[in-house]
Structures are given as structure tokens and as C-alpha cells.
């Protein structure tokens, strides 16, 4: 039976959480689950497969975005209509996917981003403001990996153009708005990471490198305007 929604879960050394996330995503009953194993050195792939996900093993690490894009290309090849992405580390709740999907259907937007305002630290908020200023885009949580993409967005992100990006963040958002796709944000619940730290915000040196990298990316894309719809649903943003 071919369902039309694919959940893409990029995972690198997430053996402790990946099976739980896969089970809970499958329990929603509306999507197939694909785990893209980004050259893990632990049991991530075996556990994900045992939990009922299709598993793609990358021959070497392609980074978070490289793994996610693999899922996009898989979705395109297998004719899925919608792709949702979530992290394997347990910070995103698979139960929130319904809200994303219904929002995608209802608002007629091409991309829905699940944001969690309370998660954001002062530094992260400052970074957000800086990038909003730089790009004139009005996305609140630009690093959120909890997203839903329709077929047009998937096509844009599976393209060669998106292959040199490194994170699923500003670069991806800028590419999407350059293609004239409509972005929409939905407040969601998220929990803080149980194990491990963010790949992007791990240390100050990494943050500095990331900021510089993204700034260069933004400058390369100057003049691009986004069309983010602002119709956030009140009452859905209680933190866990």
C-alpha cells in the first residue's frame, strides 16, 4: 500500500532514541517512515529497521542536510506527495506532525515550519533577528528541523542547486523563497534534547563558524524576499 506522506528522519548515532521516534511516527498511521542513517557508528540503522522504518545507509557522512536531501530524493523517486522531516534525537514529537500536515493542507502554503518559541535562548533569538534583518525573511525559528514540504518544495530541495547546502536552515529557506514557494509557521511543542547537544549550537567556535557561513550564504542571496504567512494558531504553544 502506497501512502502519500513520507516522514524523513536523518539520524547520526541516535541509537538511544531512533526506535522510539520511528514507532511513534508510525503510530500516527498516516505516513511511511524513512530513516537516513548518516554513517552512524552505532546501532541506529538496525534499530530503526526493526522498528519498522525503511532505512537508507549513506556510504559516508553527508551532514544533516545531506541526509535530509537523500530523503527528498527518495520521496521524489517513489512519488510521495508530501514530506515531513523531524530529528531523531527526541526533541520533536511525532504527534505534532498532524498539526503540520493539516496546516499544510489548510493554508495552501508549500512549506510549514514547526517552531517552538520557548526553546530559543537569548543568543539564538539574537541570531534570528540578525538573519531576519539580513534576508528580510520573517521566519521565527530558522533552525527548526520539524517541517512539512509539499511536492513543489520537495522538487526544489531535491535539485542539484540544494546539494551544496550544509544545514536545513537559512540556506534552505532562502532557496525555497527564491523559487516563490510560500512558507508558513506553526507553533509546536518540543522538548529539550535528552541526549547530546545540537549539532549547530554545540560550542562557541562552531557557532561563530556557523554564523559566518550563513552570513556569506545570505549575502549571496541578497534581494530575495520571502512570503511567510503569519497566521499562527493561538492556544497551541504551551511548552512541555
Amino acid at each position: 500500500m502506497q501512502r502519500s506522506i513520507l516522514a524523513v528522519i536523518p539520524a547520526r548515532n541516535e541509537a538511544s532514541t531512533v526506535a522510539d521516534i520511528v514507532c511513534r511516527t508510525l503510530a500516527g498511521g498516516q505516513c511511511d517512515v524513512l530513516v537516513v542513517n548518516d554513517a552512524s557508528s552505532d546501532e541506529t540503522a538496525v534499530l530503526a529497521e526493526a522498528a519498522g522504518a525503511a532505512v537508507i545507509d549513506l556510504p559516508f557522512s553527508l551532514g544533516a542536510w545531506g541526509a535530509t536531501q537523500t530523503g527528498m530524493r527518495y520521496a521524489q523517486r517513489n512519488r510521495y506527495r508530501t514530506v515531513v522531516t523531524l530529528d531523531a534525537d527526541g526533541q520533536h514529537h511525532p504527534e505534532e506532525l498532524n498539526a503540520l500536515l493539516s496546516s499544510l493542507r489548510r493554508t495552501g502554503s508549500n512549506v510549514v515550519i514547526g517552531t517552538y518559541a520557548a526553546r530559543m535562548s537569548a543568543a539564538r533569538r539574537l541570531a534570528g533577528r540578525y538573519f531576519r534583518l539580513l534576508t528580510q525573511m520573517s521566519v521565527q525559528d530558522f533552525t527548526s528541523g520539524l517541517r512539512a514540504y509539499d511536492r513543489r518544495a520537495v522538487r526544489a530541495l531535491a535539485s542539484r542547486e540544494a546539494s551544496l547546502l550544509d544545514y536545513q536552515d537559512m540556506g534552505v529557506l532562502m532557496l525555497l523563497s527564491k523559487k516563490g514557494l510560500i512558507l508558513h509557521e506553526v507553533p509546536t511543542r518540543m522538548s529539550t534534547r535528552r541526549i547530546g547537544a545540537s549539532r549547530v549550537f554545540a560550542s562557541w567556535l562552531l557557532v561563530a563558524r556557523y554564523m559566518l557561513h550563513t552570513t556569506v550564504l545570505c549575502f549571496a542571496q541578497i534581494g530575495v524576499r520571502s512570503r511567510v504567512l503569519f497566521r499562527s494558531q493561538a492556544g497551541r504553544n504551551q511548552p512541555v
Partner: protein
Amino acid sequence: MNSQITAGLIGTLLAGAILYLVRRDHMHGSYALWWLAIAAAILILGVFPPVIDWLGRITGISYPPVLPIIIGIGMILIRMLRTDIDRSRQERQLRRLAQKLAILEQELTATRRSLGVSAESSAGPRGKGAQVIALSKSSDA
């Protein structure tokens, strides 16, 4: 006269070394052409240094010896830029290739499973194949 012999010798050696390396066929198409052109330029400037003075006169540079240095540095910068552009292109191709490989591998595994070809029975011929390859390699050596 003495300095001209030195310049000619250095030029000939450099050009000869480049030519030798290019002829050993370690370089791909356009790179070989680029390096051949460089070798020719070095050879000409080494053997006929007055060419530099002549170039300086027609370009209006009062201290001609600086001309080959400027041109040389400019060439190196352009070459480095080209290298980085090439590397980015290759990185893109490599990433996409790895993704495609992984997707096809997953598809192959899924297809095998749906056809009921178990891992054990498919490992048999694969193991044999590996043996044959190993044998033919050792017979070559």
C-alpha cells in the same frame, strides 16, 4: 651574457619538468593544455629575456622585471580560483552520487526481500564472485 645563460637554463629545466610530468599522462585534458602553455611561456622568457623589456616598453611599465611577477601571481590566483570552483563542483557531484548510491542500495535490498531472496542465498554467489576476482588478481601478479 652570463645571466642570460642562467635564465635560459632555469626556463628550460622548468619547461622540461612540466612537459615530462604532462607527458606521463597524470593530468586530465584542459589541465595539461594549461601547463603546456605555462611551460612554453617560461621557456620563451628564459631563453629570450629581452622579450620582457620589450613587453615593458609597449605596456608603459618603467621597471619591466616586475611584469612577469605580476602576471605570474595573477595567473596563480586565477588558477586557485578555478581549482576551488572545480572542487565545489566535484563536492556537489560526490554528494549526489553518494545519495543516489544509498537510495539504489536500499531499493535493491527491498526488492530482494520482496522477491524472497534471503540474505544467505544472495551471499553465496556474491562470495564466490569475490573469490574469482581475488584469483584473477593473483594470477595477474
